[in-house]
């Protein structure tokens, strides 16, 4: 189609379909710059195991700050030109970082494990790094630096207070003084970016306490006003500023596209323009270089839940593994079975997170629960397949174990992390699971100082809690299909061997030791056979071994029977342990890792010739 013909069509869209704002915005873009779609270039600039998206791009677009997780969480710089990495501050736990507009400094959050909170540090990017503390306050549990003002005097920070309030603040780069601009709900912004003149700060925020979807706002740095820049029912994520445009990503046109909103003098000056129809999947913007190139990235591994039939008498699969959940492909993990084995639930790590429940026989997704939570670390389907108990973080910022309301996904606390002694190191609760009858929830309580772990039981009807076992180390648990026993890994101290114990879940508390490790061994509990045998993997002490390595033993809780070794033959199956065994023992469910999806991309030549002014 010729340019003149295209121009006529775009003009018709603008004239005749004014109510279709997205189409009109796209047409205006084409009319303004007919070559925009042809010249915009998106390309990968960094892939591989080191990729991390906690950092930011330098103004010249050459350096990217990142957390070097393989180097114990060091703050590091990746040179996109040479591909080389260099460490700025080793031996710690860096997180969010941002490079100053003159490219000379980097500000970064640094986790202080001894007091269980973050501080902000500064380091030089040329010469001696000289890392130094800029901000530390016992009342601020988390602080994330996102951007610098052009004059280098202030750093935009996201804050989490000790009461879990999220705040937007300005941190003086000179003396560490903190000015709080705005308090939000318990969830903060994904990123923040100063306008080029440094007078405004753009950020995104959840549309409400009950919403996962975000909108974009611009607040004056003197606190005098705020503008709701992009408020609509779509997912809108702030990406930065360029050439008079406030850039944001939005799914308003179906896929996550990049849009530019003319913004000047504290006001939106016109409709948003579509700049790039589909950015693909990403976690956050890493900033915009002086040349107007947008950097963004994502990390992770594609994951799917599969099931396979298994014969425990031979240890062999009875058929090839198959994907059981054909929706949200690439993001599914944490499988769990219903009591009757007809349903499988899992966690789809998407935005927002979804917990699908699939009928294993038909493959039909029976329901999807959207947990009203910030993060779900693990999800366990209830025995009746109606809901889940989850480990994670609720929208109030509380870590803990939550029961989800089946209809709404509301997170009802079962147990939340607490700091009863005010030590700054809260006791954590995690590793939840159901009793076989669905009337109780089991979970682990881990002391903040690491001195002990307690295996807890909570009765959902009465709310009564009781401690079933306490020791230096307790591992994850597996409840037997008949609900009578709970298998658990247990250790008396850091140096002592680990024991596999079966805890009586009914009536009088009784603990039976099934196995004790020898030197060079580790153990993992995979589940139970239908005959009441705990399936215990005895593994060489070597992380990263695939399932099936080491030995697999069936260890009966019934003392009259003897343990037997199973010779598993999973046909080269590369599954991520543990294997989740169906209640009848006929199937295993597991997570299969796909390829790495970690990458940093750059988008160039996407800006219209004229900006927002």
């Amino acid at each position: 189609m010729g340019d003149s013909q295209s121009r006529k069509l775009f003009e018709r869209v603008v004239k005749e379909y004014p109510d279709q704002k997205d189409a009109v915005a796209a047409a205006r873009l084409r009319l303004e710059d007919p070559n925009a779609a042809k010249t915009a270039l998106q390309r990968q600039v960094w892939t591989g195991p080191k990729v991390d998206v906690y950092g930011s791009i330098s103004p010249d677009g050459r350096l990217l700050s990142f957390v070097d997780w393989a180097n114990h969480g060091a703050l590091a710089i990746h040179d996109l030109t040479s591909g080389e990495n260099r460490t700025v501050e080793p031996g710690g736990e860096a997180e969010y970082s941002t490079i100053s507009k003159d490219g000379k400094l980097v500000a970064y959050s640094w986790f202080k494990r001894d007091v269980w909170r973050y501080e902000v540090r500064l380091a030089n990017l040329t010469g001696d790094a000289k890392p130094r503390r800029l901000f530390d306050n016992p009342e601020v549990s988390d602080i994330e630096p996102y951007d610098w003002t052009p004059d280098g005097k202030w750093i935009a920070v996201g804050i989490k207070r000790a009461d879990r309030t999220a705040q937007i603040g300005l941190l003086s780069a000179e003396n560490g003084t903190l000015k709080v601009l705005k308090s939000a709900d318990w969830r903060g912004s994904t990123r923040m970016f100063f306008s080029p003149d440094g007078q405004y700060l753009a950020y995104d925020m959840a549309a409400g306490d009950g919403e996962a979807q975000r909108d974009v706002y611009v607040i004056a740095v003197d606190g005098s006003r705020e503008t709701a820049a992009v408020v609509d029912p779509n997912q809108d994520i702030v990406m930065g500023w360029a050439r008079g445009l406030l850039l944001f990503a939005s799914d308003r046109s179906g896929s996550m596209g990049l849009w530019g909103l003319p913004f000047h003098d504290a006001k939106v000056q016109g409709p948003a323009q579509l700049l790039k129809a589909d950015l693909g999947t990403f976690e956050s913007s890493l900033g915009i270089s002086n040349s107007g190139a947008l950097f963004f990235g994502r990390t992770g591994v594609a994951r799917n839940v599969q099931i396979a039939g298994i014969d425990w008498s031979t240890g062999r699969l009875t058929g090839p593994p198959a994907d059981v959940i054909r929706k949200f492909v690439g993001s599914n993990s944490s499988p769990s079975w219903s009591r009757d084995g007809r349903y499988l639930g899992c966690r789809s790590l998407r935005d927002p997170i979804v917990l699908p429940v699939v009928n294993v026989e038909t493959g039909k997704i029976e329901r999807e629960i959207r947990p009203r939570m910030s993060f779900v670390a693990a999800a366990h389907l209830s025995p009746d397949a109606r809901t889940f108990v989850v480990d994670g973080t609720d929208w109030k910022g509380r870590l803990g174990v939550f029961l989800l309301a089946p209809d709404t996904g509301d997170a009802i606390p079962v147990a939340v992390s607490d700091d009863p002694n005010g030590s700054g190191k809260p006791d954590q609760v995690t590793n939840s699971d159901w009793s076989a009858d669905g009337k109780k929830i089991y979970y682990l309580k881990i002391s903040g100082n690491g001195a002990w772990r307690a295996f807890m039981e909570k009765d959902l009807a009465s709310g009564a809690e009781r401690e079933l076992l306490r020791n230096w180390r307790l591992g994850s648990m597996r409840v037997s299909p008949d609900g009578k026993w709970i298998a658990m890994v247990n250790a008396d101290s850091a140096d002592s061997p680990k024991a596999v114990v079966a805890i009586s879940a009914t009536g009088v508390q009784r603990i039976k030791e099934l196995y004790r490790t020898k030197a060079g061994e580790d153990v993992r509990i995979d589940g139970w056979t239908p005959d009441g045998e705990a399936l215990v993997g005895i593994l060489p002490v070597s992380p990263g071994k695939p399932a099936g390595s080491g030995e697999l033993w069936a260890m009966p809780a019934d003392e009259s029977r003897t343990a037997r070794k199973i010779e598993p033959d999973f046909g080269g199956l590369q599954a991520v342990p543990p294997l989740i065994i169906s209640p009848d023992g006929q199937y295993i469910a597991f997570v299969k890792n796909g390829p790495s999806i970690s990458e940093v991309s750059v988008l160039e030549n996407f800006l219209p010739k004229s900006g927002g002014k």
Partner: protein
Amino acid sequence: MLLLAAIAIPLGLDLYLPVPEENPLTAEKIELGRRLFFDRRLSRDGSLACASCHDPERAYSDGRSVAVGVSGRIGRRNSPALINRGYGRLFFWDGRAASLEEQVLLPIQDSDEMNLSLAEASARVGLAPGEISHALATFVRSILSGNSRFDQFVNGDRNALSAEEQAGLQLFRGKANCTACHVGPNFTDERLHNTGIAWRDGRFADSGAGHGDFKTPTLREIARTAPYMHDGSLATLNAVVEYYNRGGNGNPQLDPELHPLHLSEGEKRNLIQFLRSLSTR
């Protein structure tokens, strides 16, 4: 910019105070609103002003269980403290107003409160209803409470709270689960919750926003705003802590955050000590 010139934001509150575009905050409007706030002409019989139920000496509450309107009419609910309402998102105990501009006109017209039509109010004070609304809302928006000993503590003065108060703060954030609702600089999530306080004899004496739920009030200046709860049914902070310690009044819509707290007597004392640190005098 106008905002910053008109009022100072005290320590502990957000620098950004939301102000509607159509009602900018000016010193002149604050003063006009202040005069209207104390103007008894805004009640039918000239006996009451806004300040009659929102006394500055009581942090803009009135010390009664429930409000008393013109001709001694007894209201249903406690007069809430008008503290930091400029940061609010819901107004009235049941959250039925979405802005201060909307809220300030309703008590004037309520037959159990000031019982005056807007037309008559307008005629009496010589201002259009919109001007009354804007001025009163602006004045209420200027009522700020911060810089308490708690604020000084979180801002770095670690001696601003006593050991008992610090222990109470720890309980507030932890075992007592207060921050499930009383969160942020203004100690409220601005949401509606059923705490069971309206549940009497198997039914709601007041259904609030529909399910016995009422807006979380601020805790700033709480030592000066007794009695407590939407109906003023708890006379002291001790009674409030005892109420929550037993998990509230069980009812079908009770907020799931409420459960027995099992606080010891010492813990209750510390919690109350901390709550008192939120008042500026």
